[in-house]
């Protein structure tokens, strides 16, 4: 065999990394920018006033909410999509909706999940059509499908799921609290350092302990459903 050492080797470009960036980009057309998930209401009552309080709020929801619910279910969804285990997929998807604390948070997930499923079908992922049009589909369920089909490694994908949520929350805080753009970048930088440890915790959570409850968020989100003046849909 002849060596072709004179030709420089192609740099190791990972297509799956670029797919992850595509999937977690704020320009993914699922309308995430329209949702603050209780943050608007928390600002309205004066709970969030500055960088420090915004950090506590987002950190709290990321560690006690997403890392105990969406992320552990994401790991299970990813494996269920790999095995194409339809019963398991349905059960996990239903569990997510049973856990949404308010009707606006349920509607948000169904809107974003529906938008992502239509996009994925258009991009050729026919599996996204597994559900009937009338059924609610979670964003996390569809995110897991895209990750599997685009060969994004499971931990990388879980990192992306948390990161894109964080990025969206910070964007909402910049508009609502409000925070400066530089403070927003500071906030992302501080909070993303928590993500590796949260993924370890999420992976170890036994089935029976999956789930969360954030009473203040739930009440504020319920109040947001009738908030008089609002920019966001949640």
């Amino acid at each position, binding site marked *: 065999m002849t060596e072709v050492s004179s030709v420089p080797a192609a740099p190791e470009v990972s297509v799956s990394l670029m797919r992850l960036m595509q999937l977690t980009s704020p320009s993914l057309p699922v309308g995430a920018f329209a949702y603050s998930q*209780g943050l608007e209401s*928390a600002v309205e009552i004066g*709970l969030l006033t500055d960088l420090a*309080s915004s950090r*506590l*709020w987002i950190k*709290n*929801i990321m560690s*006690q*909410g997403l890392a*105990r619910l969406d992320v552990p279910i994401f790991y299970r969804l990813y494996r269920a999509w790999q095995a194409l285990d339809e019963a398991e997929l349905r*059960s996990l998807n*239903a*569990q997510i*909706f*049973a*856990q*949404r*604390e*308010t*009707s*606006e948070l*349920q509607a948000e997930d169904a809107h974003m999940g529906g938008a992502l499923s239509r996009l994925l079908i258009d991009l050729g992922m026919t599996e996204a059509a597994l559900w009937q049009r009338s059924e609610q589909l979670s964003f996390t369920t569809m995110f897991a499908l895209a990750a599997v089909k685009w060969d994004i490694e499971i931990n990388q994908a879980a990192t992306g799921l948390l990161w894109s949520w964080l990025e969206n929350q910070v964007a909402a805080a910049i508009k609502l609290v409000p925070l400066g753009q530089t403070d927003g970048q500071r906030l992302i930088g501080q909070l993303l350092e928590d993500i590796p440890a949260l993924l370890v915790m999420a992976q170890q959570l036994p089935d*029976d*302990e*999956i*789930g*969360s*409850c*954030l*009473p*203040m*968020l*739930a*009440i*504020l*989100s*319920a*109040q947001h*459903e*009738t908030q008089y003046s609002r920019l966001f849909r949640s």
Partner: protein
Amino acid sequence: MSAVPLETIEPSSGWKAKLELGYVARETRTVLAHRSRRGPLAVQRAFYPEGAVCHSYILHPPGGVVGGDELLINVSVDKDAQALLTTPGATKFYRSLGDKAHQVQRFTIAENACLEWLPQETIFFPGANAGLSTQIQLHALSRYIGWEVHCLGRPTNNERFESGQVLFSTDITRDDKPLYKERLFINGLGDLDALAGLNGYPVTATLIALPATDEVLQLVRQHCQNFTEQHKADGFAGATLLNDVLVVRYLGNSTELAHRLFRNIWLSIRPFVNGLDAVSPRIWST
């Protein structure tokens, strides 16, 4: 009724108490047709302050729960039956020396049956180690109104829940599909003060009612709004409708205010949920 004498239970391993209640619809009223108990959990003689609905008081004579104790309450309400359960006093979970205490309540509600679960509050002393689980299995046509009022620490004595841990679990299924679920895990001051969680308040309470309509939601929202305006410094209340499941939450300083809010809501929504006018259990006025 089969009862195991109390002295046969080994105290060192903690109380293992179990109470099973089965309500059945007879021609004119619901009867407590089946009951069995083991250990210190009991039910008082059923009574009928409003005709057909069977009212029962569940008693836990020791009053307090310590590490290693297990309380299991299984209630089944058969087709067309209507039962209302309450407890005469608060349940207290005391400081644990290490072992975990468990309370599990399982409600099975059949077609056209209705269960109302309106207990007094649960108080967790600092240092308690407890798991509390409510599991409700519904038929597509069952009705349920229930609340839980939990107090972490003893705010009236300025004792916060600084040590100890509690896991609250709620799982409601309808036709074996998950309908509503939550897990609240409290472990130390970080969780007590979490901005989006308890936000520094010791009392967290939830009322669930189904099936509910938008009309019921509007009614309850008004209660919550009035309550918030009246008791601004004492906490927050909010209501939402998850398909046909009404969820009302209170977060604040006072179990008494939580009960007052929930009783008022119960009085006004009961006719919409199970078609009956509300008759306050006598025990509430004592």
